[in-house]
């Protein structure tokens, strides 16, 4: 609790750190912060061209338009993948600052995860623009009551990303090779989450097992804004939430056990 209170007391400093990281990262590019929107948009367009036009199939996904289904999966996935990528790099990149600052170590994972979250929030106008455009021309999608679940999704994804980040950071203290494994973890999240598929592609008995991947439940929360019929039994979401909390606790325990070790490297 005292760590949470310390973080709350230092929220201004944390906000400055996030601002600094965002400005520094996007300041390097000619198009600056526009890349936040450009990257997922281009990725979704390529996938739509490949799946809907070249293969002529949307893999049984009936949610229309398919490109919005894709982009509502890809933007949150970007947040998750960035968190997974950066976890093992924590000691190498932020080490000197981390060891001498009088702030809890969790400040740095939180900083990086919040930067990635800001990326997702800044990219979300792409979804709004596409949804409005498609709605004007085709009449779908429409925003329903499911939009209330979006903040729930954001909250659980924040916990999940923080947990994964801390696990990566803690493991990399003794084993820097973890940095090379992040691409595998990211690929697993891409293929095992309903980014380009839907749980309806699978038999019903398998559905609860799919929700053992916590990102599955989170994506459903986001997509419920346009397609509330995607939602399944609440027990499935309880499974996803449980796994998310288990990952967060594992991350907290591992990071706490490695904090002293981290401080010995500088």
């Amino acid at each position, binding site marked *: 609790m005292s760590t949470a209170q310390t973080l709350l007391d*230092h929220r201004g400093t944390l906000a*400055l750190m996030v601002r*600094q990281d965002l*400005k520094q990262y996007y300041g390097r590019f000619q198009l600056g912060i526009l890349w936040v929107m450009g990257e997922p948009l281009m990725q979704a367009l390529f996938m739509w061209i490949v799946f809907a036009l070249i293969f002529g199939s949307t893999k049984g996904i009936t949610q229309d338009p398919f490109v919005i289904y894709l982009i509502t999966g890809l933007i949150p996935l970007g947040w998750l993948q960035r968190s997974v990528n950066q976890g093992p790099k924590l000691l190498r990149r932020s080490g000197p600052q981390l060891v001498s600052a009088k*702030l809890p170590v969790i400040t740095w994972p939180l900083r990086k995860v919040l930067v990635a979250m800001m990326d997702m929030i800044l990219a979300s106008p792409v979804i709004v623009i596409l949804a409005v455009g498609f709605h004007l021309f085709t009449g779908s999608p429409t925003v329903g009551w499911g939009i209330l679940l979006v903040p729930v999704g954001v909250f659980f994804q924040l916990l999940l990303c923080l947990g994964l980040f801390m696990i990566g950071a803690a493991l990399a203290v003794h084993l820097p090779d973890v940095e090379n494994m992040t691409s595998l973890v990211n690929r697993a999240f891409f293929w095992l989450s309903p980014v380009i598929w839907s749980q309806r592609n699978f038999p019903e008995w398998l559905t609860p097992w799919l929700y053992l991947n916590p990102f599955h439940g989170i994506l459903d929360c986001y997509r419920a804004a346009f397609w509330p019929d995607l939602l399944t039994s609440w027990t499935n979401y309880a499974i996803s939430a449980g796994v998310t909390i288990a990952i967060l606790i594992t991350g907290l325990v591992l990071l706490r056990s490695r904090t002293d070790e981290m*401080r010995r490297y500088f």
Partner: protein
Amino acid sequence: MLLSMSDAGVRVVELRERNRGRNLPTVLGRHVREQAWPVRHLDFSLKRGETVYVLDLVTHRPALFLRLATGTLRPDEGTIALPRRSVLARPAGRRQVRSLSVGQSLRMMAGLYGLADKTIDRRFEEMAEFAEVTRVLNRPIESQHRSVVAQVAFAAAACSRTDLIAFDRCAVVGDKAFRRKCARKIAELKKAGTGFVVYSPDPKQIVGMADRGLVIAGPDTREVNPAELAGMLVADKKERRERHRRQRQRQRKQDGDD
């Protein structure tokens, strides 16, 4: 007593070049991790209003002792009684604050020193005034002279009102006038009972301000007088420069042979 250490020891992890046969291909990583004890069996105490300069002959990382003194590093051996409030002041790297304004950098530095948002709000004007940045608070720090970052780091620490301040290369910073101001502020804080643990690469500062000197040399860590410490710092710098020169020469010769 403000700070006391009894039989204190710190274990660190060092990366050492892996031994390999001359003609063997590189399969495993270049480095192996080894444990070392740069500080061991250290008995040290600091009274209120005292200034101690630190020279680290083992790792050349005096920040290690400064972190130990301010509680950001816990000892592996022995015991430490820390002051209630302490600050480890280090100037931020340019990359850490590059995209912020001068005012935001000041807030960030104070935050990193452990000051809560409310405390920063209360003392912000005092800090800005001391750092002489009141008129440029909204300008990007990148557009300012390099010394502004150090001035901001000093001001945030000096106005933190803590019992102990550890300065890592930012005890006396800025131009000549600001340096005098720093020295005056330190003297004023010393009178009020603040203790200082300082590392500075400048031997002149040591003689002028230090009450005692501490040479960290593993198990042979010992206290010396400030003049002796200044002499050791000069000799150490000279030796490191010489070693570096020899290393470069060897490298150049090796490149020529290849």
